[in-house]
């Protein structure tokens, strides 16, 4: 469904160029969930932004259902962003005083959906994401876990077929992290959505298979679940010991 082929990206800065992504290729099919983990600054967010069509790579192709994003018309690209793909970003700018219902309903209202229908769908999405208790609360008053659930509800409201989630479980407790990951896995398994999710460590990506390691813009060999050991999806010994030593 989503294919990224030989994606490279450089950022030009006053102190020189930085290679954000170096010849990265991956593919996520319908009903699959793929995880990308790696240290901050490794290129995860950049990769997702390119996959979402929000950023053009310096080289390489992003293909969605066989069609390169670069060859889509403006109208098609808008449709892709509004109806096909949904994103959950690690750092989201929100209107702190906006009420949860209004915030989640926004994509529907922008798309011309009526208020009553939008509210019904918003309540459904919040219930699915276990955030229905947040109704009536301002965004600024939400806990980190609630904020992530509300963000997921907003992403699901357009019923996307591709979901890109950037560190959706970071800074959450173990139980909340498991809840978020379970929902994403169910989305892939039951709703047949293609899901690409990132995290700073492999342990967060509970239930996700395959997972790949992205560091300094380079993709390291994927780790199938069978190689990861019994319970904990720790990264390979080298990177784990490096993490422990840090």
């Amino acid at each position: 469904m989503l294919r990224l082929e030989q994606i490279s990206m450089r950022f030009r800065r006053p102190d020189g160029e930085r290679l954000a992504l170096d010849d990265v290729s991956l593919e996520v099919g319908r009903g699959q969930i793929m995880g990308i983990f790696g240290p901050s600054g490794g290129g995860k967010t950049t990769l997702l932004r390119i996959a979402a069509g929000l950023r053009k790579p310096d080289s390489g192709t992003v293909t969605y259902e066989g069609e390169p994003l670069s060859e889509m018309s403006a109208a098609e690209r808008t449709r892709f962003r509004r109806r096909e793909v949904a994103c959950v970003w690690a750092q989201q700018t929100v209107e702190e005083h906006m009420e949860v219902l209004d915030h989640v309903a926004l994509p529907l209202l922008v798309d011309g959906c009526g208020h009553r229908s939008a509210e019904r769908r918003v309540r459904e999405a919040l219930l699915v994401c276990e955030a229905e208790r947040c109704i009536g609360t301002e965004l600024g008053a939400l806990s980190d876990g609630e904020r992530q659930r509300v963000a997921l509800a907003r992403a699901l409201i357009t019923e996307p077929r591709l979901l890109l989630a950037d560190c959706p479980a970071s800074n959450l407790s173990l139980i909340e992290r498991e809840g978020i990951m379970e929902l994403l896995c169910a989305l892939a398994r039951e709703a047949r959505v293609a899901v690409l999710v990132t995290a700073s460590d492999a342990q967060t990506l509970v239930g996700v298979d395959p997972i790949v390691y992205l560091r300094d813009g380079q993709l390291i060999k994927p780790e199938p679940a069978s190689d990861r050991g019994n319970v904990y999806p720790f990264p390979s010994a080298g990177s784990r010991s490096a993490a422990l030593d840090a």
Partner: protein
Amino acid sequence: MSAKHALLGLLLHRPAYRYQLGERLQERLGPAWKINSGQLYQTVRRLAADGLIERIDSAPDDQDELHVYAITVPGVEEFESWFDAAVSTARLSRRPLLVKITLAGPERLKDTLEEIDTYEHHCMGALEKHRRLREEIPVTAQVRADHELLRVNLSADIAQLEGELVWAKYARERVTWLLSQNPIWPPMHERSRATAEEARERLEARTEMFSRIAAKPQRPLPAERKQSA
């Protein structure tokens, strides 16, 4: 590990009455292999039903204390096949006490300290017993393989019990420290408030939404779009 292959191994050496099998299991392998008569009966029955052992006596069926069992050819093959194939891996125990400590929550964590003390006390008792048994194994002028192997077996149990005591001490220290820290607890209690009704409602909403998304038609391919235009 079940006693199946241990019993076959014992019968490989010589036939035995059923009650003797239970005794020999403990004598050769140590107290950890104590098996109650009900379990022994079930295991022997299953081995016989699978054709791995057979009765070689002519006692009446209802006098099972007189039944003598011997290993069969398939039984020998099964044992040797297991012996060649079995790979020892590290086994982690599922301790009920660990479940209690992990899921106690803020209200009940303190109660687990008493449980850790009781567990420690039991381990100490078992450790003393095993050490005594090991010391009681006679040392003979001629080295006896069964004595030395029993010493090896008991040492495995002793090492495990010593490890349990190290863990229990650590667990008590950490739990005591945790209780002194006023920590943040994950919202387990929020979850516990979800009733079956709420869970059902959530599941229904999820099923409906996910079914809709799964059934969403694929957007037309570029060639199709051009044609329809």
